[in-house]
């Protein structure tokens, strides 16, 4: 069994780590490129949402490298995410690929779920399972921490790409780390290196932007045109509304924490019921950033994504009510980098001028 998985952002490091530790041969999907996207676009239904297209491309590229099994989540409604596995399975089958799927389907009863879990864990005993999960979780936390710190460091880079070089090295080491202590040590060394770059006194003067939206687009660097990096290079402090840990807590019942619903509550006056995906959370997160005194919010929305379209519909009101600037970037396969760059730059120019004026008054 040569297993692959749907990558998003840096989560791949943690996913690979636990698959490997359960003794699987892992074929990681090659990092997403425009080729990945064109493959996905070619074979997916036109109106499918962007994450489905890109992950389909990822699978096909992994299959080209020898993968024969795909691990995926399923059954998480009510948006289309719940059907991804099924839709993608049919497409791959029609293309003539003979692929096994391990779908952790959370709506299909415990017995089926248990069978899938058994396949993933390779029938390891419970102690081993706990140990492997613990390490993977530690890696998730480390990946998130690395990302969070990088946001504070990029505006102060001494040369372009400095932070990325350090992250690349750190990720490599993290990938190899085989115990929790090692992970923590790598993280603290990373923190020290970054501390040298970060100019703590100037941090508070930076324009602050919160990033909200659909989880895949927010977390996958390729899909969002490396927005965090671009903002950092433009001298902006960009914080996400959530990182990988939060997504695991939201979508995997085993890890689910109560805070999530609590955190979403502020959105209720605008969107009463869950509309799937991050729809409601997008509103809640925007309000959160406004209350924390951020200068602006960038909303990332995959074109044709229903939950985000709903959110977009009320964001204007939220933006007025809470006096926060929101820039919505709708992203699909036709989105050009030039258009995104222009919008982001203009948005930042605007926020910087405003901030300067506020300080002057």
């Amino acid at each position: 069994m040569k297993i692959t998985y749907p990558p998003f952002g840096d989560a791949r490091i943690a996913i690979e780590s636990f698959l490997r530790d359960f003794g699987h041969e892992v074929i990681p999907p090659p990092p997403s490129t425009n080729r990945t996207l064109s493959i996905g676009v070619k074979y997916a239904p036109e109106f499918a949402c962007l994450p489905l297209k890109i992950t389909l491309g990822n699978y096909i590229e992994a299959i080209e490298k020898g993968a024969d099994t795909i691990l995926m989540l399923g059954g998480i409604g009510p948006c289309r995410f719940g059907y991804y596995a099924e839709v993608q399975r049919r497409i791959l089958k029609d293309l003539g690929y003979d692929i096994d799927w391990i779908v952790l389907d959370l709506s299909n009863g415990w017995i089926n779920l248990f069978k899938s879990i058994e396949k993933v864990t390779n029938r390891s005993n419970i102690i081993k399972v706990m140990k492997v999960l613990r390490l993977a979780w530690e890696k998730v936390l480390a990946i998130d921490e690395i990302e969070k710190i990088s946001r504070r460091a990029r505006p102060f880079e001494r040369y372009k790409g400095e932070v990325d070089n350090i992250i690349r090295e750190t990720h490599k080491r993290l990938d190899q780390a085989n115990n929790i202590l090692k992970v923590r040590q790598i993280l603290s060394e990373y923190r020290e290196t970054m501390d040298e770059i970060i100019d703590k006194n100037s941090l508070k003067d930076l324009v602050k932007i919160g990033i909200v939206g659909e989880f895949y687009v927010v977390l996958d660097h390729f899909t969002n045109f490396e927005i965090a990096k671009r903002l950092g290079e433009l001298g902006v402090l960009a914080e996400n509304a959530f990182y990988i840990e939060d997504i695991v807590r939201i979508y995997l019942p085993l890890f689910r924490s109560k805070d999530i619903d609590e955190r979403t509550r502020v959105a209720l006056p605008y969107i009463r019921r869950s509309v799937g995906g991050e729809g409601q959370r997008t509103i809640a997160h925007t309000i959160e950033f406004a209350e924390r005194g951020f200068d602006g919010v960038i909303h990332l929305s995959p074109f044709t994504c229903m939950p985000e379209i709903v959110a977009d519909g009320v964001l204007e009101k939220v933006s007025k009510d809470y006096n926060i600037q929101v820039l919505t970037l709708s992203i699909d396969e036709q989105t050009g980098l030039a258009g995104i760059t222009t919008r982001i730059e203009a948005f930042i120019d605007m926020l910087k001028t405003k901030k300067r004026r506020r300080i002057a008054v």
Partner: protein
Amino acid sequence: MKKFLGIDVGSVSTDIAIIDEKGNIIIGLYLRTAGDPIKAVKDGFFKIKSQFGSDLKIDGVGVTGSARFLIGAVVGADVIKNEITAHAVAGLHYNPKVQTIIEIGGQDSKIIIIRDGIVVDFAMNSVCAAGTGSFLDHQAQRLGIPIEEFGDVALRAQKPVRIAGRCTVFAESDMIHKQQLGHKREDILFGLCEALVRNYLSNVGRGKEILPPILFQGGVAANKGIKVAFERALGTEIIVPPYFSLMGAIGAGLLAQEANIRKSNFKGFDIVDQDITTRGFECKGCSNLCEITNIFIEGKLVARLGGRCGKWEDLEYNPSL
């Protein structure tokens, strides 16, 4: 008197303006980009050179537009800025009280909302052609009317025809249909103006508080039919600045002035006589596979664009690939 050069390089047109330190226009040029922005800029520089001689001193250069990074590197820009900021700066310079800027160019359209002299909101549309100049060009051609006369003819409309359709394809088929029904040409033309304005207001202008004074900038502002259609739809006066099609370039020039540069990077107008070439390649350094563009002047590498990491910015870096 100090002089500043502003260049706006879009996919359809390339506009060049030289302004003095008060923002007065010394020369303004409008050129077709025709897929080759370097040639367009060279053509413009050639005209400037033949009018002023090559020792015209420039104290700062600003570049905007979709090819701003390329042209910025070629001419030696001091400031490289996005089109929205450039248009806002130019609009504010022309009318410090402006609250709304409508900009419609050949390939895209924008709205900029300004309050108390600063930009507070904006939107931009580059996907849908139904709200841009190329749509009008196309329809004028179809109806056999030179685009320059489009506006004047449209204003003669007595009974404007309502052209339905939110996108180019529908609008076009509806227009053909109305033509077959025997509607007058001017009525159809004004109908097209109204359709464009409707599209603009419901797309780009959606949810924006459009308050006067309103400036109408960009190439399409030449079309009086559109101006009137906007005035009717919004029920207020629309101001078209005298240099409406050069506002991006003027804004770029003003930004160069504001930047207070001590010594400009400008390479001079003599680059028209130089051999400027670009050569692209795909960097295989990592999975980003960036398209790197090398820019050569007289065979010498002067700039590199397109790398997401910094490694190609060092011009010395030259691994034997």
